[in-house]
């Protein structure tokens, strides 16, 4: 217990109740979880990732790496939330992470001891890489489970997220990233030009570093300026103020991406803003100093300790000590002292702080230690004292160690400009020695970074930069930025920093607090040869946590630069990538979740299928009947019955999902001759032909049936899966390859409902259904095409077969398709017609040996599927040049074969590997694979299609279909892929 309420800060009076690990706590309106936990005296908020060391609040902003909590319970649970960024709401449930059984007493913290005893073995730099190199068997059995139990962050919820997320698209002329004094000024000035302005800030309250200032009479005019500026922006019609919106990435075309938390029905908005000009006023983040046990709860950034007191009315402790290498942290000591809280020491690593600072300490009775460092934070759970020492002039050693009492240590290692957003669009940042930090080098096009984000920490100087940027941005867009009132007070921005990258000290010195990366890990990374900052990052996981290196990067690469004996500028930074802050996946998904994830396409006959009790399956975007079970039937019973029925009598199947393309024009026939391997110019009007397309590289692309309706008009069908791609391909051919061809293509897939009527009684059924059409073999032979009308419906009937039976495909105008289907079903009653689904469609075509997407998988040549003979020798066609290359016609290529279970009741799994040994092991000679399987009622056996090396000449051989994952090994006989009616008599009957 060290933190407590002290003064009002800027919070409201309303009291809120929330719980932490089930314990009731009090907060005030405006509190974050971090400020409220501190005010309730909570020091240990959780445990660290690898070593399970206690962790507390370390900051007051997005850089939080210690106080990571789970917000909410059940499906609403949000793990790894930064307590500093989460506002307390009435009844909020907050949970600690990585703690068993409780944050104060954690069994896993033995990891920390093991790390000390066996340096370099457990969880040190490169741990994951080294572990992966241990024997693989041990990894699954031992290491992975134990690492998962020991290391890890919060637990993701296992139930669906009940919250709603939205996506918003915005456009603006000037986008301002950051709502501190510079951002507010730039936005207001730009808005007065009349241009559209959007301003983002990730906090609930705008004002940036102004919120660190005491809310005192002395600062009343400054506070009023902040409020007036925000009010003016909110009042302007052309300005959108987005608070609690973290801008996390900048993309091509000046697009900014942000996630905004909102209260109400929607939890978060994912906002994309297309800006013409971007002003980046993202401010700077204070960085920690690296000393012994600097991760102990109640060690926090000086600016955070100050904001907790001045903004949230929360004193972080009863006795404060300050450790710094620059001027800015002194104000924290002064504000605490002025608020009546004891300040036991200011420890400054510099030899000569300015006279003003020395006087400030003296007048308040604060003991100042110069040329001194904190070597170690001490205390069991949280800080209770610090060990300080004098620093040798060369910075390499310390002497005169002594204890100073305190219960909170505020530290500052200088300020890191938030260059990420600027760096996304431009060149790498450059090192600025005067502030010991990286600043934006070359500005990206249309971008201005200003204020602390550009290394200018002075209040008025930063605002001046912002106004210049607003003026320039507006001028380029043809507008005139307005004059705005400057803040009534100034704050000196000079920090007079003397870098101190690490302290010669004992104890763990954390660089990345969230990922438990220590200074020793950086040194180890160097000694193992991972010296580039990009390697360092990946080898140690430094900077890959929630804070994305905001507090850790500069310190780590400074230590690396020291190891390498190069300058920090030479060591450079890692590349900045979006997202720069943790963002919820829900925002990206927006409302496109569950059934809205992708559209569902239904055929005109959907309702009929539902009434008939069909079980549906998703095929691409289509919902298609899979089978129509009768009472008590399993899926196997149903498709075996349907298949048998089609072979013996007649069945009807919805094939609407096939792609349908009309190809029209004087050069239509020539066009088809080029895209198909076989001839279409010779096709007679009123006839259909099966066609195969190749890709330019000679691989089979798609197949289907194309009919000639008139000399200059063709009707192409494609497979369901390739309907879209084939259409785009044909358009491309006509636009780019052969613009001289006079041809138009149009997709008519939605224009026609389609049904296959198949079986020995198909002709009789259709004759009864459509008496005006002559279905006799003479009038309507195999591959014939007939146009008809029936009760207002236009019909196209093709006599083609996918099942191997006598069959017709009936295309009916969509709005009439269900009527036509019903007409056929009614007429078919006399022949016991049954509807059949996708399972039976598959079973029938496998029995017949027809290929489909499972076989035409983008690796198959014509020869592989025994279609080489179809290719015309009289003409050129797409794919002809490369289809005859050696590799494409090699006799050892896997070729399509039929496979029959030697024991007919043993199924052959799709995806099995074909081998010649009965009990094949991983090293077996893999000679092919199984692409499709079914039970064949006709053969009374399980059968399959597959590809077998040199399969054409291996008919009669007995081999094995091995499925090692399931421990299956099925003996199969290699047969022709035409299991049923190989002479093709039935279709012509």
């Amino acid at each position, binding site marked *: 217990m060290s933190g407590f309420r002290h003064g009002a800060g800027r919070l409201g009076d309303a009291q809120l109740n929330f719980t932490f690990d089930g314990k009731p706590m009090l907060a005030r309106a405006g509190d974050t979880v971090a400020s409220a936990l501190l005010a309730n005296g909570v020091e240990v908020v959780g445990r660290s990732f690898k070593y399970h060391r206690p962790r507390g609040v370390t900051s007051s902003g997005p850089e939080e790496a210690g106080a990571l909590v789970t917000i909410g319970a059940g499906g609403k649970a949000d793990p790894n939330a930064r307590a500093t960024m989460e506002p307390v709401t009435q009844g909020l449930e907050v949970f600690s992470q990585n703690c068993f059984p409780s944050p104060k007493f954690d069994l896993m913290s033995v990891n920390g001891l093991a790390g000390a005893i066996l340096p370099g073995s457990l969880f040190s730099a490169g741990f994951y890489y080294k572990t992966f190199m241990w024997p693989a068997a041990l990894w699954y059995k031992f290491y992975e489970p134990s690492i998962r139990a020991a290391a890890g962050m919060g637990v993701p919820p296992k139930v669906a997220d009940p919250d709603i997320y939205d996506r918003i698209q915005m456009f603006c002329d000037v986008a301002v990233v950051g709502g501190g004094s510079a951002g507010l000024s730039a936005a207001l000035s730009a808005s007065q030009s009349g241009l559209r302005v959007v301003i983002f800030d990730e906090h609930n309250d705008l004002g940036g570093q102004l919120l660190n200032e005491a809310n005192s009479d002395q600062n009343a005019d400054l506070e009023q300026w902040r409020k007036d500026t925000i009010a003016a922006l909110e009042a302007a019609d052309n300005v959108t103020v987005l608070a609690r919106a973290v801008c996390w990435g900048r*993309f*091509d075309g000046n697009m900014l991406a942000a996630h905004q938390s909102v209260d109400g029905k929607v939890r978060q908005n994912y906002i*994309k803003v297309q800006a013409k000009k971007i002003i980046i006023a993202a401010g700077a983040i204070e960085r920690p100093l690296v000393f012994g046990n600097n991760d102990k709860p109640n060690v926090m950034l000086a600016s955070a300790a100050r904001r907790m007191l001045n903004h949230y009315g929360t004193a972080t402790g009863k006795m404060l000590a300050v450790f710094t290498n620059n001027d800015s942290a002194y104000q924290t000591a002064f504000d605490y002292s002025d608020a009546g809280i004891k300040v036991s020491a200011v420890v400054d690593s510099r030899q000569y702080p300015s006279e003003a600072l020395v006087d400030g300490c003296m007048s308040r009775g604060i003991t100042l230690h110069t040329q001194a460092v904190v070597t170690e934070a001490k205390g069991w759970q949280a800080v209770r004292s610090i060990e300080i020492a004098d620093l040798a002039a060369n910075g390499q050693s310390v002497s005169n160690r002594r204890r100073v009492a305190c219960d909170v240590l505020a530290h500052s290692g200088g300020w890191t400009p938030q260059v990420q957003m600027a760096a996304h669009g431009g060149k790498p940042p450059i090192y600025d020695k005067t502030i010991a930090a990286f600043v934006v080098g070359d500005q990206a096009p249309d971008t201005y970074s200003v204020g602390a984000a550009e290394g200018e920490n002075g209040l008025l100087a930063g605002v001046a930069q912002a106004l210049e940027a607003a003026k320039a941005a507006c001028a380029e867009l043809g507008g005139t930025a307005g004059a705005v009132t400057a803040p009534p007070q100034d704050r000196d921005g000079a920090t007079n920093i003397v870098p101190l990258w690490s302290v010669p000290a004992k104890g763990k010195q954390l660089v990345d607090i969230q990922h438990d990366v220590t200074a020793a890990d950086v040194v180890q990374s160097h000694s193992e040869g991972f010296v580039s900052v990009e390697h360092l990052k990946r080898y140690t996981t430094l900077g890959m946590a929630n804070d994305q290196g905001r507090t850790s990067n500069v310190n780590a690469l400074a230590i690396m630069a020291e190891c390498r004996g190069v300058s920090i500028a030479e060591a450079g930074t890692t590349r900045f990538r979006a997202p720069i802050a943790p963002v919820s996946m829900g925002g990206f998904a927006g409302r496109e979740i569950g059934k809205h994830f992708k559209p569902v396409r239904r055929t005109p006959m959907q309702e009929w299928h539902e009434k008939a009790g069909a079980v549906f399956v998703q095929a691409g975007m289509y919902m298609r009947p899979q089978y129509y079970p009768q009472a008590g039937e399993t899926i196997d019973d149903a498709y075996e019955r349907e298949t048998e029925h089609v072979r013996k009598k007649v069945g009807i199947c919805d094939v609407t999902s096939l792609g349908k393309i009309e190809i029209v024009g004087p050069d239509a026939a020539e066009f088809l001759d080029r895209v198909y391997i076989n001839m279409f110019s010779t096709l007679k009007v009123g006839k259909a032909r099966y066609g195969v397309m190749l890709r*330019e590289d000679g691989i089979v692309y798609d197949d289907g049936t194309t009919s000639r309706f008139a000399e200059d008009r063709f009707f192409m069908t494609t497979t369901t899966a390739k309907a879209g791609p084939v259409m*785009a391909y044909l358009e*491309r051919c006509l*636009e780019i390859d052969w613009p001289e061809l006079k041809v138009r293509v149009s997709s008519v897939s939605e224009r026609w409902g389609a049904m296959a009527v198949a079986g020995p009684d198909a002709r009789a059924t259709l004759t009864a259904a459509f008496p005006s059409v002559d279905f006799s073999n003479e009038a309507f032979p195999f591959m014939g095409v007939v146009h008809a009308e029936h009760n207002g419906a236009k019909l196209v009937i093709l006599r083609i077969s996918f099942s191997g039976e006598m069959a017709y495909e009936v295309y009916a105008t969509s709005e009439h398709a269900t009527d036509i289907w019903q007409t056929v079903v009614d007429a078919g009653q006399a022949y016991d017609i049954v509807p059949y689904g996708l399972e039976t469609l598959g079973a029938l075509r496998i029995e017949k040996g027809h290929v489909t997407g499972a076989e035409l998988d983008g690796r198959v040549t014509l020869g592989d599927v025994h279609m080489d003979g179809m290719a015309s020798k009289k003409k*050129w066609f797409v794919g002809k040049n*490369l289809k005859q*290359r050696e590799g494409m016609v090699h006799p050892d290529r896997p070729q399509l074969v039929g496979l029959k279970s030697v024991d007919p009741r043993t199924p052959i799994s799709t995806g099995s590997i074909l081998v010649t040994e009965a009990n094949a092991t991983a090293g077996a000679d893999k000679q092919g694979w199984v692409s499709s399987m079914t039970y064949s009622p006709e053969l009374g056996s399980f059968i399959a299609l597959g590809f077998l090396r040199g399969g054409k000449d291996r008919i009669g051989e007995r081999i094995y279909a091995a499925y090692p994952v399931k421990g299956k090994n099925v003996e199969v006989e290699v047969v022709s892929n035409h299991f049923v009616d190989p002479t093709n008599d039935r279709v012509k009957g």
Partner: protein
Amino acid sequence: MHHIYCPYCEEMREEEEYSYTGEAHIERPKDPAAISDEAWADYIFFRSNPRGIHHEMWYHAAGCRRYFNATRDTQSYKVHETYKMGEMPTITAATVAANQVAKGDAS
């Protein structure tokens, strides 16, 4: 997210409506049946992949469904111009280089 001008629709539309379909201005061999495998492979597989100005084809898949050309910088991703099939670009690597020289002379 780029906004790209479709020269057929004559409007700026979102990148999501388009798809990139490869390098532009690659002449299709007039008589593919007559050329060598090497020449054909060169046509099918080999592309210039420049750093900087690149002329490429885009497909307005969720719009007019036509193919057009774009001049784009492969380093900055900036789309400098779009133009119809059969037309020639006004911005090329040569014009950009000439501009840079001109600017250099001026300063």
